[in-house]
């Protein structure tokens, strides 16, 4: 976790900041910023899934909730979207806490089932929402759509507003840096938490719940805490997504997106610091390369997740780290062996008297 990680972080950040100045094709900038958005979601998911070991699949629902909060506040109340993001975050925290409470007595796969059910219920509720709300009837009598937009989705609620600052061509670069800033915050938050006392509690509960409890860690408190902590930026990422695309729809809670994002986590490495970033990058790249055969996308993702679960459960970040350690051991070998021998001597002499 030491200097090496800070150097990697600085390097990647430098590249990401410089990238738009190399005049890449516009669609690559769009892909990159979408990758930042997903990577943020994955980095927060990693807190719940990787660090706390809770198999929650609710993150995509929280992401979508954030997007809908931003979209609806922008559309119906005409708020500047910048004011909606904190509210989206808080809405996500509240929603996530409810799910956390419901999951308190569940373990393992049952948490996955419950949280998946919650997202699917949310999907169906929005998809089938065809009622014209009374509010909407007053506001838009001519084009009455349902409150959530139903299956058509919801649009025309504003954007980040970079168009008026940077112009009709470069606004996307504004969006790019906005998303990048969010990702940096997400990574820093994940890093700080995982190295903090709170993170230690999450890991302890993951490794051995009963032992953690008898060492003074309240499962109730810390489980709710991880649900709350991980939800804020996830929901804000949803808001940013909505602001960038200018539209939200039920595809944000759909199963394919869930699969896509969870694949990032699995491929990158569950519980690894660099897992989310690596996974998001690789899957976005793969998605780009295999565009031609996109009919097979979900099948392909399923196979990839399966293969990783079986052969590389620690993901690519885990595999790379292991390789690195092996190299380190190769060079530092004599030293550690000497240490072990010394401690053996000590142990035997102690027990000898």
């Amino acid at each position: 976790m030491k200097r090496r990680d800070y150097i990697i972080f600085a390097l990647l950040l430098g590249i990401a900041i410089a990238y738009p100045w190399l005049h890449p094709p516009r669609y690559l900038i769009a892909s990159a910023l979408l990758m930042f958005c997903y990577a943020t979601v994955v980095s927060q998911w990693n807190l719940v899934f990787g660090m706390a070991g809770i198999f929650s699949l609710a993150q995509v629902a929280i992401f979508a909730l954030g997007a809908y909060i931003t979209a609806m506040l922008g559309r119906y109340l005409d708020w500047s979207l910048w004011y909606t993001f904190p509210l989206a975050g808080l809405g996500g925290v509240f929603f996530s806490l409810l799910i956390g409470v419901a999951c308190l007595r569940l373990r393992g796969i049952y948490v996955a089932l419950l949280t998946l059910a919650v997202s699917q219920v949310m999907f169906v509720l929005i998809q089938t929402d065809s009622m014209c709300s009374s509010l909407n009837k007053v506001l838009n009598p001519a084009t009455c759509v349902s409150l959530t937009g139903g299956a058509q989705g919801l649009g025309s609620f504003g954007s980040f507003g970079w168009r008026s600052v940077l112009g009709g061509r470069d606004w996307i670069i504004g969006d790019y840096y906005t998303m990048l800033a969010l990702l940096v915050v997400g990574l820093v938050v994940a890093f700080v938490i995982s190295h903090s006392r709170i993170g230690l509690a999450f890991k302890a509960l993951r490794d051995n719940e009963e032992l953690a409890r008898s060492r003074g860690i309240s499962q109730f408190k810390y489980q709710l805490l991880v649900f709350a902590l991980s939800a804020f930026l996830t929901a804000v990422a949803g808001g940013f997504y909505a602001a960038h695309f200018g539209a939200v729809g039920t595809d944000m809670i759909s199963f394919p997106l869930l699969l896509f994002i969870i694949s990032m986590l699995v491929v990158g490495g569950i519980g690894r610091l660099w897992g989310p970033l690596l996974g998001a990058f690789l899957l976005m790249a793969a998605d780009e390369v295999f565009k031609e055969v996109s009919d097979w996308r979900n099948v392909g993702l399923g196979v990839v997740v399966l293969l990783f679960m079986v052969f590389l459960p620690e993901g690519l970040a885990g595999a790379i780290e292991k390789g690195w350690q092996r190299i380190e051991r190769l060079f530092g070998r004599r030293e550690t062996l000497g240490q072990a021998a010394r401690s053996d001597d000590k142990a035997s002499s102690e027990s000898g008297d």
Partner: protein
Amino acid sequence: MSGEGTQPLLACRNVSKYFGALAAVSDFDLDVHSGDVVGIGGPNGAGKTTFLDVVSGINPATSGDIRLDGENIAHTAPDIICHRGIARTYQLNAGFDSMSIRENILVGAAFGQGDKGIPRLRYSRSMHQRVGRALELCGLQDKAHLIVRSLPVLDRKLVMLAGAVATEPKLLLIDEPVGGLNPHEVDDVMEIVSGLVDAGMTIILIEHVMRFLLQISKRVVIMHHGEKIYEGDPQGLLSDQRVVEVYLGKGTAKRLQHMLAERGGND
């Protein structure tokens, strides 16, 4: 017994634990004063571990009264009991497997006795000092960086013990510290636990290895079918008719008597 007349550190009255109709612990009384070292023995299924589960809050009592420093903790959550000052180890080699030895012990130090349960990001300096002391007491200083998953049994037991010690408990509960160890390793653990006793720690320990139980404990309790059939000093145990009948057998009793006599001579 030390501190007689004063309020006991731990006072258990009529503690019972039922699993359905089965009384794993039944009407059990025990007083532990500060500085006591109480050893609990007895046949398998006597309710020894269940008693520790009850005291540490993992498996609350069905009925009865458990007071720590006069405060009832019979239905308090295990994390709060830990904050109040009781820490325990497990019979099985429980550990935080993916973490290093140091991190395992840091859990005890960071959330142990006196913690208010407020989630904070930072560690205080005293937490790191607790870790250092626990590592030293359990002889793990040189191995602190090793990952717990791959440790041999003895080290895993010591890590678990160090984690409990790091909470700086008023009362330490140790469940079978030398179960499954070879005689050489038993001596190692005995030395470490003696060190804890010398450091003034109050301990309740469960053990089947009688030579360990009798040499470490200042007072011994024998349980059978959830009840106490003996409480007194280690010597008296070996001449107690019922204990010899139910648990030790005549041969073992004689052998242990020799061992204690020898040790007494050496002192």
